[in-house]
């Protein structure tokens, strides 16, 4: 029996469009656009300077097209709306003032924002196109000294902290998409955990792109002071459009002495149809700096959506004994392309990093792991363990592994392992003869394959991720 071949995928559930009046600026990107965004957000002068510097540098840069294993038609950066906000009252004192249409949208997405229905134990910042529409549990968190708010609010309320850390991990000239983001970013989340505080609940941001013409350029900044701890979750969806939309985010994490940041993502942007029409271009720069001793940053990502994913959540291990972790499941189906991985830069002594990456490619998709482990001369006793496994479903997909290992210190110990396999007939047969349907068997095997990563996710997310994988691969074997 030759069972494993590809059929259809289940419909994308979050593909609806919210009919809401929006306040959008005309398409196109010039210095005036940058000024306009800044003035719309009522930003201080230094913020505008930051944007303009980034914009001017962006003009001199080239799109990184030659090294990633992805192909896409030329992006016309003048054909994008850089600011789009649902029309509503400028300041919203409470959720009651948020447009009910928006609340319904998030409810439909499974993210209830009204107080009674809020997810217990998780504070949510909901970002709709270019702006944050609501942040829950803000008051409760304030009692602990934890600041969790939209980025715009942070610029207004806490300019000193933002000024100090913004661009300190991902400089404005870091790469093409980071520069673009620095110039035109509109909103995002800001998290500040003061010294010694263990954040009492998980924080989460939910991103939704609604406007067909707009791109989403959000910025997240998380600062964990000495001895603090935070777990942050991020989720994303977008409606189905035939046109590709650009999503270029920048995420910066800073962990001081003994601090720990756990950052989890379930990315389920619209992936385009079976022929690869439409879908999100997800070009994201995520980087964390373990600035302090014994600090720890852990990235967990489940990447199932987007037409193209270009994403390398990284850790700069500066502080002595600091730890970086990267757990990733990347699933591509149909015509999706993913070039994703991580960078672990060991600078401090006795720094440790772990990379576990699981790639699953089905349909005619391409899935690449690209990772860098760099041990600088001063990183005495650095340690890295990398494992990347790929699974191919169907004979038209591709799986690639591009690990870069650069070691300049002989006390370092770096290990890399990679395997590629497919679901074996024997495993399927075994499960089926135990009365498990073929689909459930495949799902079981896939979930087993990804177990090491799912284990790292917070409970609700893990359940969501497992369901998502099952859904994405539904009918993909037969």
């Amino acid at each position: 029996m030759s069972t494993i071949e590809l059929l259809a995928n289940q419909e994308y559930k979050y593909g609806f469009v919210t009919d809401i009046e929006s306040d959008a600026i005309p398409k196109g990107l010039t210095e005036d656009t940058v000024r306009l965004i800044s003035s719309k957000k009522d930003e201080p002068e230094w913020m505008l300077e930051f944007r303009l510097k980034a914009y001017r540098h962006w003009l001199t840069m080239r799109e990184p097209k030659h090294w990633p294993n992805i192909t896409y038609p030329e992006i016309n950066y003048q054909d994008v709306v850089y600011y789009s906000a649902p029309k509503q009252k400028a300041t919203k004192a409470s959720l009651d003032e948020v447009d009910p249409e928006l609340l319904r949208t998030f409810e439909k997405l499974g993210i209830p924002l009204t107080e009674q229905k809020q997810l217990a134990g998780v504070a949510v910042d909901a970002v709709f196109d270019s702006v944050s529409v609501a942040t829950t549990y803000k008051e409760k968190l304030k009692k602990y000294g934890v600041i969790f708010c939209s980025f715009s609010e942070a610029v207004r309320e806490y300019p000193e902290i933002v000024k100090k850390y913004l661009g300190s991990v991902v400089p404005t000239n870091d790469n093409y998409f980071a520069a673009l983001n620095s110039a035109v970013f509109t909103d995002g989340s800001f998290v500040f955990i003061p010294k010694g505080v263990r954040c009492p609940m998980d924080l989460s941001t939910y991103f939704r792109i609604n406007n067909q013409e707009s791109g989403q350029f959000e910025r997240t900044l998380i600062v964990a002071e000495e001895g603090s701890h935070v777990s942050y979750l991020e989720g994303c969806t977008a409606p189905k459009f035939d046109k590709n939309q650009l999503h270029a985010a920048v995420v910066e994490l800073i962990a001081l002495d003994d601090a720990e940041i756990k950052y989890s993502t379930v990315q389920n942007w619209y992936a385009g149809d079976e022929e690869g029409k439409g879908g999100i271009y997800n070009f994201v720069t995520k980087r964390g700096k373990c600035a302090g001793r014994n600090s720890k940053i852990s990235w967990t990502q489940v990447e199932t959506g987007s037409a193209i994913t270009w994403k390398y959540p990284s850790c700069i291990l500066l502080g002595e004994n600091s730890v970086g972790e990267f757990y990733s499941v990347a699933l591509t189906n149909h015509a999706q392309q993913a070039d994703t991985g991580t960078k672990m830069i060991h600078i401090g002594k006795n720094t440790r990093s772990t990379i576990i990456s699981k790639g699953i490619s089905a349909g005619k998709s391409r899935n690449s792991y690209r990772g860098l482990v760099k041990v600088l001369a001063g990183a005495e006793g650095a340690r890295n363990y990398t494992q990347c496994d790929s699974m191919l479903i169907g004979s038209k997909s591709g799986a690639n592994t591009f690990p870069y290992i650069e070691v300049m210190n002989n006390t370092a110990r770096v290990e890399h392992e990679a395997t590629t396999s497919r679901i074996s007939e024997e495993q399927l047969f075994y499960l089926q003869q135990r009365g498990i349907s073929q689909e459930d068997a495949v799902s079981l095997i896939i979930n087993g394959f990804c177990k090491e990563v799912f284990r790292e996710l917070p409970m609700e997310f893990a359940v969501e991720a497992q369901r998502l994988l099952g859904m994405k691969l539904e009918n993909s074997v037969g």
Partner: protein
Amino acid sequence: MMSQATKEKSQYRSAFEEFAKQIAQGEPLWAARLREGAMDRFEAKGFPTTDLEDWKYTNVAPIVRAAFRPASNKAGSPAQPEMIDPSIYTEAARSRLVFVNGVYSPELSSLEALPAGVVLADFATAFTGEHADLLRESVEQNAAHDEDAFAALNTAFLRDGAFLLIPKGVSVEAPILLLFISTSADPDVLSSPRVVVVAERDSAATIIESYSASGDAVYFTNAVVDISLGDNARVTHYKVQDESLRAFHVASTRAELGRGSAYNLTTITLGAQLSRHGIEVLFEQEGAECWVDGLYMVGTGQHADTHSLIDHRKAHCTSHQNYKGILDGKSRAVFNGRVFVHRDAQQTDAMQSNKNLLLSTEARVDTKPQLEIYADDVKCAHGATVGQLEEEELFYLASRGLHANLARNLLTYGFAEEIVDKIKIGSIKAQLDEAILNRLHARLEA
């Protein structure tokens, strides 16, 4: 930078014209035309820079800066038999071709041990021989796909090379030695060795490709080796690179594998201040198998780069790759192993491993094992490690009364042994053993 490059090009151009005049007689017209075309390609491409992904970790600026020129003329190579003696492997004493500073030396070569039908000849002889067409085909084919400036440069100065033909069904007992030796008599020399091996169906042979030096001259070896294996042919290939520690060595090895054939390559890299070895193994037919193994051992001032591509184009092929590196002093090694599995290459089994041992704080390794897979029914794995000797193992030996340095050497030797053990030719093994022990011994005294 630009002007430097231009100067460099014109320098090779004038050397090229002089070279062309020198060999005007005795060269077939097609070869002259081929060389001319290659020179143009070389100039158009220019030497690679670190901007190119393939040359990211290896900077060839020292080669660009130096002024190399081909060996002046044939009469001027004053090699004496006693000079090459230490470089001759006894197993291959009567089946060898010797090239001195890139120039073929009939006096030093010997073909007595070769069975009838086997052709081993220098290019000048082969160009006019019975198999001239076969040789021409190989050389032209190579020129058609040369990807970098070095291969084009080799073709531009194509004159002395080795042509080996093993007819179908013939199995050659004695290993065949191709020795390229450099002497201090001719400094700054550019030698462009070319080897063409055609192993016909059901044939078997062992080839030793050896680069060595007497003295410590600065020179540049730019070699190209093309091997084609017919159905069920078996070729065992040793490449021993023991150039002078001031030399530059750039080489490319390309093997095309026929149905059910087996290619077994072992590379030993000991010498040269800067060396780069490009390997391509192409599975052209189903059911073939290859082993591509190597050991690089470098010390202060050395940079060794290995770039390999195992190209699984057809189904049911198996590849094994095991590279080990020992780095000491202020040295640097680069390993880039690419395994490519095409859409139709189902049932591929590919294994790759690269392990590096850093003995000093100043050594640096950049390794990049790459898997690119477009078929689903395959078994592929790769692994890479960088590290130092295990404290526990050292402690174990120390507890058995071994001096710390001795324990260290023993473990280092053990690390290399996996590759050394694979070598079936006694005198290569002995040479390698000696090289490893000498280096380890030098550490003891230092």
